[in-house]
């Protein structure tokens, strides 16, 4: 993060103490649920609600969670799902954004308004009709059934269109003079220049669909198609009584890959988010 060497409004003295205290207190409150999940997951169940420092550490909750539900299958489903969605989104949104950014055609205004409408009306709101469509297509309880409503993302189209419009027209013209067709110009000029935006969008898309719950819950009813979120819910609302330690272990398992990925790439993530100009 680039900081100015001299900031006349950097808090000093008492204000600095007060602000630091406030920032830390809020940070502790915000991290508390995760901290608790770590505590409960790594300690025996009898210490789940008793916070003594001498409590023994254990991995047993994780092994119990892992064998209690088909998490391997859920992981595979989720990874296939987010990959499927992201790849399709990138292709469809790139093509559409290029059309909106650099082509004149009748109906462009109406088409763009139709895209913007999806920013307000997310597929989540249309679960009843989309379920009907999926049954008509026999896609209930399949991964494509979960993915399809999200592959044309208005947010992605909008974001990429804004980016493509900032690409100098001269670069486009130069490539055309060399004899490149529209698709070649897109691949050789626009896509490479928009790389940080693809990264930022990828992170948003992957974390959104890794975490998405309502639609997958509705459209799946078997282990073969369930993603992690639905699997976790089925698992933790089971009849075996509430075992918080195992639930916390399963929670960490479920969100672990995203959490590790975020901690590793935190800096790049925040920066590419900023460069994407999503503000």
């Amino acid at each position: 993060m680039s900081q100015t060497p001299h900031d006349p409004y950097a808090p000093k003295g008492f204000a600095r103490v007060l602000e630091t205290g406030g920032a830390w207190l809020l940070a502790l409150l915000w991290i508390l649920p995760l901290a608790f999940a770590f505590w409960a997951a790594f300690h025996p169940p009898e210490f789940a609600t008793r916070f003594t420092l001498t409590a023994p550490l254990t991995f047993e909750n994780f092994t119990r969670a892992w064998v209690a539900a088909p998490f391997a299958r859920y992981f595979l489903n989720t990874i296939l799902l987010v990959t499927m969605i992201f790849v399709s989104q990138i292709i469809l949104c790139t093509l559409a954004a290029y059309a909106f950014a650099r082509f004149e055609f009748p109906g462009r205004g109406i088409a763009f308004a139709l895209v913007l409408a999806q920013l307000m009306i997310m597929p989540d709101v249309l679960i009843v009709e989309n379920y009907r469509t999926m049954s008509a297509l026999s896609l209930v309880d399949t991964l494509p059934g979960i993915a399809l409503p999200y592959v044309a993302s208005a947010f992605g189209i909008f974001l990429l269109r804004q980016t493509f419009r900032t690409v100098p027209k001269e670069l486009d013209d130069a490539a055309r003079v060399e004899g490149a067709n529209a698709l070649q110009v897109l691949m050789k000029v626009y896509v490479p220049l928009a790389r940080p935006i693809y990264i930022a969008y990828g992170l948003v898309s992957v974390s959104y669909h890794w975490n998405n719950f309502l639609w997958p819950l509705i459209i799946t009813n078997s282990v073969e198609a369930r993603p992690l979120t639905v699997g976790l819910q089925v698992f933790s609302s089971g009849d075996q009584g509430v075992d918080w330690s195992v639930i916390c272990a399963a929670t960490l398992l479920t969100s672990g890959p995203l959490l590790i990925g975020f901690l590793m790439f935190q800096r790049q993530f925040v920066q590419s988010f900023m460069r994407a100009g999503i503000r």
Partner: protein
Amino acid sequence: MSDRFRSAIVGWLLLLPAMIFLVAFTHWPAVASLWESVMSTPKPRRPARFVGAANFEQIWADPIFWQSLTNNLWFALGTIPTSIALAMLMAVWVNDRLPGRTFARMAYFTPTILPMIAVANIWLFFFTPQYGLLEQILGALGFGATNWLGSKDTALWAVTVVAIWKEAGFFMIFYLAALQSISPTLAEAASLEGASRWTYFRRVQFPLLMPTTLFVLINAVINAFRMVDHIIVMTRGGPDNATSLLLFYIYQVGFSFWDTAYAAALTIVLLAMLALIAFIQYGWLERRVHYR
């Protein structure tokens, strides 16, 4: 072939794949909902037939709908201003060079990348009576026991708190990006004029953040009518519909009671509300926002 004609063909061809999916899963279902909402729910022996406004009359007379609508408005009123204000505060804090700001930034943002469904389980434990974390803390301070999620008076606020916790850090990133794009010369100029920090925030930073606030506001409003994951895990709309939100009610009517026609009519009401909000936000608010 003229250049204009060529451009039109290529443009539409590029747009076509995305348009097919947009129409199939956003616009068509919206129109189909309208159609379904004036029909009856098909039963094995009784196919759907035209019933006119009957579903909407049922909505008008449905106490659970009104309760869900009221709940949703309170939920929106609770989450939107609080999460935006907190996000702004967080962004100002982690933008300043405070000790431990990397940790603070990470802490604020973490809820965003955790699945709501997973953290809802943990919050469920926090709110559990007797041995839950909140109860342990309040008990130690000498307060009596409260069944946070089981009581009609507190349940909606409990789920609102979880939503604020989930959302504030996400909005913070947008504010942080906007704050960092404000030229440092403005701060220098303001300090030469002798402006206090509060004046600098109020007269310089805050107005320059307005486009971000509009963007965040739109997202916050959409989320207020869409966030149901934690309701499904934590309360299932209870107790006595105290935490039923509109989308949750649609889900319940459509997929627990399988009354698809009534769910379609409810969807139309929700869509109409979202359209009205969009109209207000784009038409009226945007003219009031100062762009650079």
